[in-house]
């Protein structure tokens, strides 16, 4: 008889499990629940700041429960968000790359913000963001994303190493030619001819296209159109930009092969690279850990100055209740208010998303004490939209593969870009 009991018990347990789990997930109906996924692409204790924001908002709005969920990198976060959306229960809101906009629209996953903007106050806030950040946030006359953690690429340079090389520590390179020249002087080799310190390092893993945009923008080329339906990888200016990058490696002043994004700040701390290109979002991290005097400057120009914008926007997902969407809208409005945006910028190094934020006392003080924090903002007037198209992940991968092929010497620059162009055109055919 024990066997029958045993089996019966097991069967009951099997049946009980789903009930347990389903019930656990549907508690607390009294409050409006707003879950949101957020990625972190920069170093530092970001999760704590976000949790702090959530708590602050909940204190001011007792009927709403905000649950921030850390979801990894930008790429991992979009996978999770879309996975959740496709299984019918997306997060109410999420911070995703501004470039994911077209993909999210195509998947019918998000709602535009225009419908939520009602009062005059709302409108003032809505129109108060930097125009450069709205470039990747609007399509078809509607606004689909609200800027939150936005950035531009900036150049960090090690002042000590500059002095050692006999260069003026306060005069960073401002043109491509100067960059090459300075990098050559900063490259150190040991007795056996092995390089112990590279002059310049531009990462090319993960999302090389973004760093590549610092070279194409300054060469006067735009990679994709506003509608996200056409790309121009084989433009001579683009190929020229890629060739410049490849040549830096060939000249021995830039590390060979594909350079890892994640270890680039560490490479900077370890003095393995005298100049690095990375997001302004790493500023606080670098400030804390550098251990030497460093400077931050705008990206050196060629035909013009410029940089892509980058980073994440808030999106509101369709498959949530109107109450949840309203609550999410409130939260997004709250978290992008000048005081919060200022705090966020100080804690990370991301650009505060509205001019008003830079007028707050905290950010004014911080900016005067630590001028590098303002460089990325000052670069906004010459900043362009980040590369984004329909079927974004796939088209971007074609570009990334081409860039990595050229940088590792597997293909010449023009071949790599022509192949990428062909692949991208094939993918975008259905979106013309």
């Amino acid at each position, binding site marked *: 008889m024990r066997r029958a009991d045993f089996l019966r018990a097991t069967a009951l347990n099997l049946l009980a499990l789903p009930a347990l789990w389903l019930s656990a997930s549907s508690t607390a109906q009294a409050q409006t629940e707003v879950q949101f996924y957020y990625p972190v692409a920069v170093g530092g204790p970001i999760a704590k700041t976000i949790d702090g924001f959530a708590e602050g908002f909940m204190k001011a709005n007792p009927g709403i429960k905000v649950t921030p969920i850390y979801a990894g990198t930008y790429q991992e976060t979009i996978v999770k968000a879309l996975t959740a959306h*496709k299984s019918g229960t997306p997060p109410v809101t999420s911070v995703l790359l501004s470039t994911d906009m077209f993909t999210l629209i195509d*998947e*019918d996953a998000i709602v535009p913000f225009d419908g939520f903007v009602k009062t005059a106050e709302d409108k003032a806030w809505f129109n108060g963001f930097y125009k450069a950040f709205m470039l990747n946030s609007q399509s078809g006359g509607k606004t689909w994303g609200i800027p939150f953690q936005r950035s531009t690429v900036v150049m960090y340079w090690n002042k000590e190493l500059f002095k050692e090389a006999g260069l003026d520590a306060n005069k960073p390179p401002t043109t491509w030619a100067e960059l090459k020249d300075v990098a050559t002087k900063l490259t150190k080799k040991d007795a056996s001819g092995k390089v112990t310190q590279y002059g310049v390092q531009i990462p090319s893993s993960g999302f090389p296209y973004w760093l590549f945009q610092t070279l194409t923008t300054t060469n006067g080329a735009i990679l994709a159109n506003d509608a996200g339906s056409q790309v121009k990888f084989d433009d001579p200016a683009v190929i020229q930009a890629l060739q410049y990058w490849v040549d830096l490696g060939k000249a021995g002043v830039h590390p*060979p092969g594909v*350079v890892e994004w994640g270890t680039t700040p560490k490479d900077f701390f370890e003095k393995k690279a005298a100049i690095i290109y990375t997001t302004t979002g790493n500023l606080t991290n670098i400030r804390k850990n550098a251990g030497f005097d460093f400077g931050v400057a705008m990206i050196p120009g060629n035909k013009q100055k410029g940089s892509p914008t980058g980073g994440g926007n808030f999106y509101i997902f369709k498959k949530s209740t109107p109450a949840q969407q309203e609550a999410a809208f409130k939260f997004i409005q709250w978290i992008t208010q000048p005081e919060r945006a200022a705090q966020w910028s100080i804690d990370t190094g991301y650009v505060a998303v509205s001019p008003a934020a830079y007028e707050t006392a905290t950010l004014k003080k911080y900016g005067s004490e630590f001028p590098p924090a303002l460089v990325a903002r000052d670069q906004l007037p010459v900043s362009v939209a980040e590369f984004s198209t329909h*079927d974004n992940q796939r088209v971007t991968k074609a570009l990334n593969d081409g860039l990595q092929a050229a940088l590792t010497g597997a293909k010449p620059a023009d071949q790599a870009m022509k192949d990428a162009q062909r692949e991208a055109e094939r993918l975008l055919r259905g979106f013309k």
Partner: protein
Amino acid sequence: MTHAASSAGGSSLRAVHAWLMLLPALALLALFTHWPIVSTVVDSLHSTPKGARAVVWVGLENYESMAADPVFWKAVRNNLWFASATIPLSIGLALLMALWVNERIAGRAFLRMAYFTPTVLPMIAVANIWLFFYTPQYGLLEQVTGALGLPSHNWLGNPATALGAVTLVAIWKEAGFFMIFYLAALQSLNPSLREAAAIEGASRWYFFRRVQWPLLMPTTLFVLVNAFINAFRMVDHLFVLTRGGPDNASTLLLYHLYEVGFGFWDTAYAAAITVVLVAVLAGVALLQFFVFDRKVHYR
């Protein structure tokens, strides 16, 4: 009351009993293995649903684009190379480790622990450590090669070495696990065999080649099958080390499948890739079934 007498009347009842006992397992297998295989094949013959667009029959179109996609073939070639490196090397090392630990070597307990530790650590955790080992300029490998006066190398960022670097991590992870199987088998060998060989003055190599190796055949077969499956399953480390790059130099089929299915959300094309994977594994399954079948008759 013999067995036969009791079974004559109740054979259909017993069949019912038997099927009842099989039911939970078979039902789950059907739901998560058999049916998905069928449904994957069906999906691969249709288009991907996207937003408002409905699913349509496209026949072999997904397979055609797959055949024309250089990234797919890269993944196939990489996976075959990866399999041909991990399978013999991890099994060979496992055998060697087992033979050593089985002997009266000084510090066997430490050796056994050292060989087996990689198995207990999650791949995703150790991948970060290996990332450090491979980091150019100040990574561990760099420090060692620098001390030896060898040139610097970007192991993960160079298409020529990325796959090899990733393979090494896989071998490191697997060998210890297979070692346990060999060790158990070695320890269950009849000790009198060894005594007899010793009396005859046989060398260790002779003893291994003529006695141990043949007796270990069943274990080797078992381990071989496992290694083969793992060669197509092990992609966790790619997430941290290379993400399939540079330029797909280290991508493997299952990783490519994940990229297409959950990165690009092209589920029909992902289904086509899945069909290829399943075909490869099923092919080996059939082979294994026949070989094992013969093995069963031997006993």
